[in-house]
């Protein structure tokens, strides 16, 4: 079920008010309203479903804890999403950073456009590709592509240099290009061979 929170501003206001009064039913309703979207976000930042659930859990706990800080000036959905992203960053920080040593070789593939690729690869496959990126690359890729942050902002957020951010993003793209190419070869062996 898709619910656009912006269309239910008044409902959200009521729910927030009830949540601030620590009404557990209201908290559950608010969670159910936003959970599918937020889980979609968490899945991109996580390595697997379990990790995404961990991020989601910590994120929502944080949302309920700091709900009194929401000032209704912007989108509530956006505010919650930011918290989820912050939790994902915190999770990344807690983990030991594993720097992958990559040996990336890009093969030429036949001309295909994004629509064609999308028609052949499902969302789940794309998600799996992102999830399989090394944590640092995945984080930078997500922040740049989906949150729209600049490399300078990413560098500040993660405590790394701007150059590292750019480098991680480039490497992430190279890996994704390779896996997309591989997937396309499997999905359409003729066009890739020919």
């Amino acid at each position, binding site marked *: 079920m*898709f619910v656009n929170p912006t269309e239910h501003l008044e409902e959200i206001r009521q729910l927030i008010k009830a949540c601030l009064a*620590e009404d*557990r039913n209201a*908290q*559950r309703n608010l*969670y*159910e309203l936003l*959970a*599918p*979207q937020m*889980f*979609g976000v968490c*899945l*991109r930042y996580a390595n697997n479903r379990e990790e*995404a*659930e*961990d991020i*989601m*859990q*910590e994120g*929502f*706990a944080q949302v*309920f*804890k700091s709900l009194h800080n929401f000032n209704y000036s912007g989108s509530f959905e956006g505010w919650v999403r930011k918290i989820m992203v912050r939790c994902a960053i915190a999770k990344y*920080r*807690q*983990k*030991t*950073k594993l720097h992958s040593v990559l040996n990336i070789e*890009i093969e*030429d*593939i*036949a*001309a*295909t*456009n*994004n629509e064609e*690729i*999308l028609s052949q*690869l499902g*969302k789940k496959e*794309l*998600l799996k*590709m*992102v999830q399989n990126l090394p944590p640092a690359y995945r984080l930078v*890729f997500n922040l*740049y*592509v*989906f949150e729209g942050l600049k490399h300078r902002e990413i560098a500040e957020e*993660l*405590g*790394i240099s701007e150059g590292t951010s750019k480098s991680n993003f480039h490497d992430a*793209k190279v890996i*994704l*290009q390779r896996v*997309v*190419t591989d997937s396309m070869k499997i999905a359409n062996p003729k066009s890739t061979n020919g």
Partner: protein
Amino acid sequence: MDKNLQNIEDLFKKGLEGNEETPSENVWNNIDQSLEKENSLKFRKKYYSLKTATAILVMVVALLSIYILRNELQKQTEKQKNEKLGKENGVLKKEKPATNNLTETIKNHQPEKNFSLLRKEGKIKSTNGDANRSLLKRNNANESLKSSGENVSNEAAINKLIISPRPTEKKSSVVVNNPFLKKPQENHSNDFNSHNLVIQPPAINFEFAQIRSFNALKNLKHTTTISPYTMPKKPNSNRSTIHIPSTPQFYADVFYSPTIPFSHLRDDDHQSGNPSSREFEKKESGTYSYSFGFSIGYQFNHKCSMQSGISFSTLNMDHEPEKIYAERDNRGAVKFPINTSSGKGYILPSFTSNPRIGDSLDTKNIEHSLVYTVIPLAFKYNKTFGRLSANLLAGLSANILIKGKISTEVKSGNESELERTGEIHGLKPVYIAALAGIGFDYAIFKNLSLTFSPTINFAIDPINKNVPIRSYPGTIDFHSGVKIRF
């Protein structure tokens, strides 16, 4: 390479933007549990404040009660004494005829007999027997004359039997042990000035001895504690006059103190991957702690003193539940780290004895406690108001680490285990703290006082080193104890 794949980010943005999936029911259950924990933690914090306030209130009430009770007891004792005195005086007045009888009896009684009786019972030691004998004769004769009138009082009747010269007269060496007889009536003592008469036992016994010899005066036996001068001086009638010597002297103080710990954290080397001090400050809170020990001091004069001593102090902190990830410890073994503001400890639950790096566990509340031996050196400025003295205190203390402990319950799936480690990495063996406070001493006796002293201690150098977060703990102490002056 294909042009579209150069913009691969667009491909993923189109494909995954707005992607929605439903999480498992466990997510809400876990959120629900964490909200429950949060509520209980809030309640505990509130309850902790309430407990602290109650403890302070109880102490203040206890001190006030002691003060009031003591006053009341003293008042009651005085009242009882006065009542008894009044009652007995009343009895004497009622028994006026009997005392007249006594007078009569005395009048008819032989002075020699009186004297011999006294001597027989060892009441009188005389160095000049004849003189005393004649003296008694004369005295008895005089008193008999006086008491023959209708207005003779009980006191006069009894005075006849009590030999009580004026103690200020040097010529007389009469010693009367009864304190009630220290105020002689002038009318009765003139004749004794030149005689050496010693009455060793209390004169009241002498009186009683005399009275016993007359059967008619049986009813007066209970008046043996009464004398003509029964207005005993109230001992310590002015209660605020306990004099606390201002001369240099030593004192010792034994105390117990409930404490409220707090912690100020600073980022030392905040790098990516390390939690910040702000996160810790949000997640940690002080729990019930205490200290006990003794101090010895030297009072230079009635205003200034210096004190030192030794005490044992516990510092207990609570850290919110969190997920921990296995990593290599300093020895290279893969264990689960627990980060606290004091330092990092490693645990290895039996159900995950061979973890891989990155494996995770959930913890419940993490408790970390530190025990220190504290050696203070402080100056005190005192101001005395009768029994109560107030003082200002300032100084430094060396805090020597005795032990540190981190404990928590960890769980993974259905498995859970209580874990504890006594090894906290990064703790310094000694740190220096400043202390300041106010104190109140209430003197119960000349050398014994009750003390109450709220004091704040705060670290002026961190308790840990080579760690991302430097911790400066502090405590608010409520010292209550007993002080003895030597």
